[in-house]
């Protein structure tokens, strides 16, 4: 297993280098720069700024300098937030996104698997139709529809929550639901399908023929294989949670990394864009690795080779 993880991490390095290079040149090819964004900059200040950020060097020198710093884990200064480094901005805003992501993930996983498993066990009954109708509706209500709708109903009409902000504990409720419900709907459908598939297997009949109580049949014999599709889905789900966080943090004005990234995109804050893309790429690659390891650990027929 250790070997598998090491190999995967080694494979990651060239991937990240390629991403860094591509992103760097793509960003530099773009018309406009962060300085010209500030409406009227006197020429001498502009020259000073360019010198400060190293824009007066050739592109190759800038590239090599950037990559050199990257090797030390230094993502450079932000062009927009003067005096802040990208590392500092990420360090400050990512924990907020992480907290939101964890709540949403827990909601998605618990609600999704519970609904899916119950629906599979009570196939073609009310306990199947009701949650699965909600799941279908959930899939058709993406975060940017669900979010404003929840705000409209629970914050504006009912007044239970603040429509935006990230100050009090109850400010977490609507954003976490907005982000989590969509994936819980997906997971509910996946786990129902997986459980139905497993429950029709011969070995479930064997387990029943042994006189095992239904609780053990489900929890010991069916769950493990039945929820494998959910585990496989986690990779895409993590990526989805990240792009979902852009939307949710924008809707609720949450000071997370997602909102900083979108603002950086608007402001052409090159280093911030580059840094965030690399950070997200690394994060997703690591999470995918965790998912792959989990898949092998849960499925004895797979091995790390």
């Amino acid at each position, binding site marked *: 297993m250790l070997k598998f993880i090491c190999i995967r991490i080694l*494979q990651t390095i060239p991937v990240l280098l390629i991403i860094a290079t591509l992103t760097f040149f793509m960003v530099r090819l*773009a018309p406009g720069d962060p300085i010209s964004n500030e409406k009227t900059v006197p020429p001498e200040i502009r020259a000073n700024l360019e010198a400060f950020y190293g824009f007066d060097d050739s592109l190759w020198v800038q590239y090599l300098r950037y990559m050199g710093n990257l090797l030390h884990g230094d993502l450079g200064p932000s062009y927009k937030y003067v005096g802040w480094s990208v590392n500092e901005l990420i360090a400050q805003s990512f924990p907020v996104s992480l907290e939101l992501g964890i709540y949403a993930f827990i909601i998605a996983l618990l609600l999704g698997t519970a609904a899916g498993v119950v629906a599979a066990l009570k196939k073609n009954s009310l306990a199947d139709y009701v949650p699965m109708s909600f799941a279908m509706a959930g899939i058709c209500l*993406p975060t940017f529809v669900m979010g404003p*709708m929840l705000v409209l109903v629970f914050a*504006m009409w009912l007044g239970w929550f603040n429509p935006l902000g990230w100050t009090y504990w109850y400010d977490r409720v609507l954003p976490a639901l907005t982000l989590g419900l969509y994936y819980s709907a997906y997971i509910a459908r996946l786990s129902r399908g997986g459980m139905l598939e497993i429950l029709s297997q011969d070995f479930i009949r064997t387990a029943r023929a042994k006189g095992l109580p239904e609780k053990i049949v489900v929890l010991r014999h069916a769950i493990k294989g039945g929820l494998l*599709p959910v585990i496989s889905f986690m990779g895409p789900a993590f990526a989805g949670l990240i792009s979902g966080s852009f939307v949710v943090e*924008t809707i609720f004005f949450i000071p997370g990394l997602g909102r900083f990234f*979108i603002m950086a995109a608007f402001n052409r804050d090159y280093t911030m864009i580059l840094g965030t893309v690399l950070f997200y*790429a690394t994060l997703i*690659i690591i999470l995918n690795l965790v998912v792959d390891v989990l898949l092998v650990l849960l499925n004895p027929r797979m091995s790390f080779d």
Partner: protein
Amino acid sequence: MSVMPTDIPENDPAPEIRAADLEEGTSLWKDAWHRLCQNHLAILGLGIFVFVTLLSIFGPFLTPYSYETTNLAYGPRPPSLEHWLGTDDLGRDLLTRLLHGGRVSIGVGFCATAVSLLIGVLYGAVSGYLGGKTDAVMMRLVDILYALPFTIFVILLMVIFGRNIILLFVAIGAVEWLTMARIVRGQVSVLKTREFIEAAVSLGLNQRRIILRHIIPNVLGPIIVYSTLTVPAVMLLEAVLSFLGLGVQPPMSSWGLLIKEGAEKMDVYPWLLISPALIFSATLFSLNFLGDGLRDALDPQSSTD
């Protein structure tokens, strides 16, 4: 073997053998159509989608208003007899903007799906057909790309190359081809070991001809199914981008943009949020049901996930 409980024909038998048989191709499609017709939700989905599409294409000719001419004196008004869905804060008729937005959203959905289809099918077919080391390398590349945060790349592309709608098609299509490539590759690598392909090879047909005449027609089922499911995924991505302000720009209109505008003003003009959210969700809903129905009809072996 004796009659096992699972042998009792609950569904029509899967046309596993027939699917591989070109001679009976027509009866396969007839079968599939028949099965689809029995799936009321899928037919409902098809109906809704055709209705919404026709409305978006022809509707703008029928409304007496322009989607971009503002009428500040008129201002935002709730639904009325003159403006069935009300007007926005610039006095524009929401129904007209909604129908125009439908053109853009559905157009993006189809064009980007076509792009992803082209790349994915070619890539997957070549990989699956060649097999061996080429296949391994090509699929490993897909695996690596899978792990990358693609929404972020689309955002990046939109930032760099301006918010150009044609580019949006290409950018989205270019990131949505991975699953298609995997599906096609899987089908092709199974198909090419089947007897009728071997027969074609032994007849000395050249590879291009074998791929075009024998393999592509046989993987058409899964491709249709997955395309139907790609359209809503693409529309979702476009809507997310427009919602974040990185996609379609005003005074153009798209459903994501209208939802964004509605969400910004929902505290005072809730009707601006509700109708775009409803029509967008209804369209996603219809396409998802249609896709599920098509999968059951065309590819009965695959489980629902």
